[in-house]
């Protein structure tokens, strides 16, 4: 399970290396791309449609990172909506 298996017997928990991070980000991006294609915002709502990507993502990123990235995806989307709303309001106020 790689470097993120905190719970295993191995006492020497190593820090993530540049390669580890890169691999995690890549698998995250391909999972999120898959969600985008399925028109899903919140990770976990996609059913089985991105199972392969999700498995790779979970194999290569720590749980805490996955929680963080998933939350950020939802927040970024909400923010995008709010910004669009604010923009629409500003536009209509100008008319």
């Amino acid at each position, binding site marked *: 399970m790689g470097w993120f298996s905190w719970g295993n017997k191995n006492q020497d928990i190593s*820090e993530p290396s540049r390669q580890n991070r890169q691999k995690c*980000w890549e698998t995250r991006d391909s999972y999120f791309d898959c969600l985008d294609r399925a028109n899903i915002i919140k990770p976990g709502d996609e059913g089985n449609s991105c199972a392969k990507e999700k498995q790779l993502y979970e194999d290569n990123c720590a749980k*805490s990172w996955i929680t963080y*990235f998933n939350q950020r995806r939802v927040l970024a989307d909400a923010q995008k909506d709010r910004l669009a709303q604010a923009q629409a309001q500003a536009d209509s106020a100008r008319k």
Partner: protein
Amino acid sequence: MREVSHFVTLMFSQRALASLARRTYVGGQQTARHGRRNFSQTLKRQSQFGKDRNTIGTLTPASAAVFVATGVGLYFYFRYEKQKLLEEREKERSSRQYGRPQIGGPFSLTRSTGETFTEKDLLGKWSLVYFGFTNCPDICPAELDKVGTILNKLEPALGKTFLPVFISVDPARDTPERVGRYLADFHPAFVGLVGTYEAIKGACKAYRVYFSTPPNADPQGDYLVDHSIFVYLMDPEGQFVEAFGQNTEADQIAARITEEVARYGK
């Protein structure tokens, strides 16, 4: 001084215009229309004194004296204004020195190589201080890479006068060995610092940095640390200069540091 020369040019051109106008008038054509009203008044007055007609342009000893006096007066006036401006600028600069935020201060931590490291070890170099943790998902590595890029941009011109410092805000998990290995991925000049929870808390307080690790965090745990993500620029006397946020690009920071180094050297 440019103002004075402008004014002189203006005076000359007005004079030329006036003499031109007068000549046209003297020539019998009543079409000195392009002169302003005060010009035509002057013209009328001058035409009454036929004697003046043969002097060169409008240059009489009296007007020459007025011209010179105005010039000298303006010269001193502008010199005075310039002096006043310089004084104001100086005052502003000194007040900025006093307006520095109180960031930085005493701390005692351990280097990833084992030695003790205090705020005194920052003296003599420009330091770039960043607080983070090795399990940081994406912001810390991006910022540390940015610091490396900045150093690579600055060092060819300014020499190895920079000290990048990484202070771990994860005392439970970040051992000196972990931090040392972690930083090897970024820039060879990085100094990694770790300490007990209390020591880290003290350093964070000095730099007004917030961090969320609980004192009793599980060293085996999988958690994230929420923390402030500024890069602090400290001058060779250990004084805070500026804090750079995530949105400031490496190029902008490098330019800003170059500016500060030049100003400091003066």
